[in-house]
Structure formats: C-alpha cells, structure tokens
C-alpha cells in the first residue's frame, strides 16, 4: 500500500484533532489550557475528567469553535475550525430550556436557527415535529411534548435538553457535566439512554465530567486533565468492551478502572 493512501485512510478516520493547543483568555500569558493534543476516531465517545476549574469547559469552547486557540490548531472532521461549528450539539448541567416554549418547541428551537433547516422550517414543520417526537420517545418523554419545562422533573428536563442538542442531527455531541445535578438513579437511567442513542446514531461524543464512574461507563477513551492551567496528564482506553451494561459497574474490572482514574486525579491534586 502506498504511503499516501495510508495517511489518507488515517486522516479520514480522525474526527477531532487538537495539535498543541494553548488558550489564554487575556494577554497576561496565563493559559487556561496548555499544550492539549488529542485525536479521536470517527464515532468515538471520549470523556474528559479532572478536578473542577481544570479548563474542561474551555476545552468545550475550543472544540465548538466558540473560542479560537491562542496557539496550536484544532481540526474537526478534517477541516480546521475557524468559527462556530454547526455540526455540533451541546448540553450543559443546567437544562437551559425556555420556559415559555413547550417541550416540543424547545426541542425544535435549533431548527429555527441552523441552516439549511431554518429556511424550510415553516413549510416542513410537520416533518420536523415528527422527528422531534421520535427523539422524545427515544429518551422516554413521549406524552410530554406539549408540557412546559417547568412541569417536568429535573431528569426529564435534561432529557429534553439532550433531544434539543441532537435534533439537527449533529456529527458531534458535546456534554458539559450534563448529569451533575441529578440524583444517582436518574443519572444511571440517563447514562443508558445516552449509551443507546450513541450506539444507534453513531455520533461523536465529548463528555466533560468529574464523575469517574460516568466516564468509565460511557466513554471509549478517557482523558484526565490537570488543574489550571489544564493539561492532559493521562489517556486511558476503556478496556471493557462497549456498549456496557449497568451491571458491569458493580464488577471488579470496572472498579479497577475507576480506581486507576482516581489515582491519576490524586496525582494531579498533589502535583
């Protein structure tokens, strides 16, 4: 096989590509993140864990093109990132649903903004509604489409928020501690929903979290970040084959993985 074809094959299989990325928020020279280099395969689910204030959210801004790196390059899906990336959907710890819109209208919101849907939204509303209802059903929210967000529980709101992030069929889903405010049982339930959605639709995921069990359960590859300035101090491929079952979280290999990650965090804190 000629060398050129090989690099091409590798290139096309890469989705996220950070090369020596630095970001400073002002001119002081204090970096929020330092020398981040990582690549992901198409369809890979990665998690970034670390202590709070380690620049995880900064990483998100870089990956979505909302912030440009001070140094280094970011490329997503083979193209250098120069501005906001429409192929991305985002969800946060706060569901940020709009209280004057029904759940259905909240989920449809991105389509009123992002091209090409924006232009055809009015004429094809029924078709888009059907797509939203299907998505709501997939996360267990059928029957709640006409309810307002404040009539839903926290877990339900977060499900709706994930639907909103996925409605325009993004290639990449960015989640910033999306389950952080939920109780343990709801959280595990949503883990499984996210796992199944990703298995079905094969989108790329970057999950930022400080819950190590969450990272170990969901991600194919886990990156550990240091305190500010944030650097990647460890990369761990998940040795447990996915999609994983909830029962697995009570087994020895899973605990060992979580324990290992915890040790990396411990080292980060004392360093």
């Amino acid at each position: 096989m000629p060398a050129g074809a090989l690099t091409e094959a590798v290139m096309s299989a890469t989705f996220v590509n950070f090369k020596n990325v630095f970001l400073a928020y002002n001119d002081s020279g204090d970096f929020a993140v330092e020398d981040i280099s990582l690549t992901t395969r198409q369809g890979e689910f990665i998690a970034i864990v670390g202590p709070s204030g380690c620049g995880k959210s900064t990483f998100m801004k870089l990956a979505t093109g909302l912030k440009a790196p001070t140094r280094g390059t970011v490329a997503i899906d083979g193209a250098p990132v120069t501005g906001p990336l429409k192929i991305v959907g985002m969800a946060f710890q706060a569901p940020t649903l709009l209280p004057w819109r029904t759940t259905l209208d909240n989920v449809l919101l991105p389509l009123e903004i992002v091209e090409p849907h924006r232009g055809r939204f009015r004429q094809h509303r029924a078709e888009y509604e059907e797509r939203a209802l299907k998505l709501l059903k997939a996360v267990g929210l059928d029957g709640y489409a006409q309810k307002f967000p404040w009539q839903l529980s926290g877990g339900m709101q977060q499900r709706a928020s994930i639907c909103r992030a996925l409605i325009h069929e993004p290639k990449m889903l960015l989640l910033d501690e999306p389950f952080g405010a939920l109780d343990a049982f709801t959280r595990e339930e949503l883990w499984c929903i996210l796992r199944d959605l990703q298995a079905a639709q094969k989108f790329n995921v970057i999950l930022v979290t400080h819950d190590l069990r969450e990272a170990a359960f969901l991600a194919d590859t886990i990156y550990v970040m240091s305190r500010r300035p944030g650097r990647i101090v460890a990369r761990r491929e998940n040795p447990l084959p996915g999609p994983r079952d909830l029962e697995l979280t009570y087994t020895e290999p899973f605990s060992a993985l979580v324990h290992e990650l915890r040790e990396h965090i411990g080292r980060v804190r004392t360093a």
Partner: protein
Amino acid sequence: MTMNKTLLQKSAPWLLMALVLVIWQAICSLFNVSEFIFPSPVAIVQSLVEFAGAIALHAWRTFWVTMAGFAIAVVVGVVLGMVIGSSPFLYSAAYPLMTAFNALPKAAFVPILVVWFGIGAGPAILTAFLISFFPIMVNIATGLATLEPEMEDVLRVLGARRLDVLLKVGLPRSMPYFFASLKVAITLAFVGTTVSEMTASNEGIGYLLVSAGSSMRMPLAFAGLVVIGAMAMTMYELFSVVEKRTTGWAHRGAH
C-alpha cells in the same frame, strides 16, 4: 371554606378602603373639622358630583397627556433597553449616566420645557415621558443582560446571529420584567403629568388642583386627587391583567 377565603382576600382592599373612609368621616364629623382644612369624604363626593363636568374635562386632558408621554416612554425605553442590554460595553458605559439622570427631580425640568415648548400639553407629555422611561429601560436591559451564557452558546454554535438570540430568547425572556416595569411606569407617568400641569398648563387635574387650592376649595382639590388615584390604579390593574395573560409561565405557583 377556601372559597370564602379567596372571596375575602379579593374584597380585602375594598374593605380596607371603606374602613379608612368611615374613620375619616367620623373624625371630621365628631371634631367638626373645617372643610377648608381637611374635607370629609362626604364633602369630597359632593364636590365631585357638583363639578363633575369640569372634573371630567380636566381628567380627560390629564389622561391622554399621560398616555402620550407613557407611549413615548415605552418606545424609547424598549429601544434604549435593547441597545444597552445587548452589549456589555454599552451597558457599563451608559448605566451610570442613566442613573444620574434618573436621580434628577423631573419637576425641575418643567421650567426648561416651558421655555422650549410653551405652556400646554408639550411640557406635560415630556415630563410624563422623562419620569417613566427609566424603569422600562432598566428592566429590558436587565432582562437581556442576564441571559444565561450556556443558552447563548447553544444558539451561537448553531450560527445564530445577534438578532436571532434577541428575538428567540432575549426579548421573550425580558417580557416579565417589561410588564412589571410598565406597572411602575404608568403610575410615575401620572405623577409627571400632574406636576407639570401644576405650573405649566391651563388644563388638566394638576391645574385644577392649583386653582382649587388657591381659591380655598379644598373638597374640589381632594376630588382631583381622588380622580388621579383612580386613573392610575385602573391603568395599573389593566397592565397586571395583561401581564398575567401574556407571561403566565413566569408567574406559576402564584395563583
């Protein structure tokens, strides 16, 4: 039981008013207070009836002048609020100046406005406007400036323009603030009109107050105050109803 309770709550303001009126009348009758000092409710009602025609004319004048000033205040307040609220730079630049302006007594503007516009509706409309646009502007600006950054990120990443964020999220989100400010602004606008009419007009309730006072017709002056209060309260209640209808999502929980 609960039915009776809500009924009682709804009629509470009327009951309180009736109680105040009864005590007021009782004091006036018992101590034989002179009408020139402190007129009794009965005397006020008598002069309300006696001068009904004239009072109605002056009240109408005050009403439309206030509404004109208030309408300008809504337009200017909303536009300024949108401009200031959608840019942190302008927000920090304009806010101290606006606060300083708001601290100025608006009655002090009346002589200046008279020089510019002469005696009549002009100064009254402008005084009503000057006194009432500030709360509207501040509330719109605050509603826009306190937008969650996460929400903005969600939209910006999709390629939303400033205008999209403003129309889809910013403005609907500031509506409860807006209506709350309308209720405050309308009562302030009546204050502005009346103050201006007292020195710079030959019509309106403000003029009526001054001329009744100078001719020692205290019941008539009090009747003028009653009319102003009633108009302001009616408009306040009107905006309350509009507020509840349009932004019910912000008032859930409160029944």
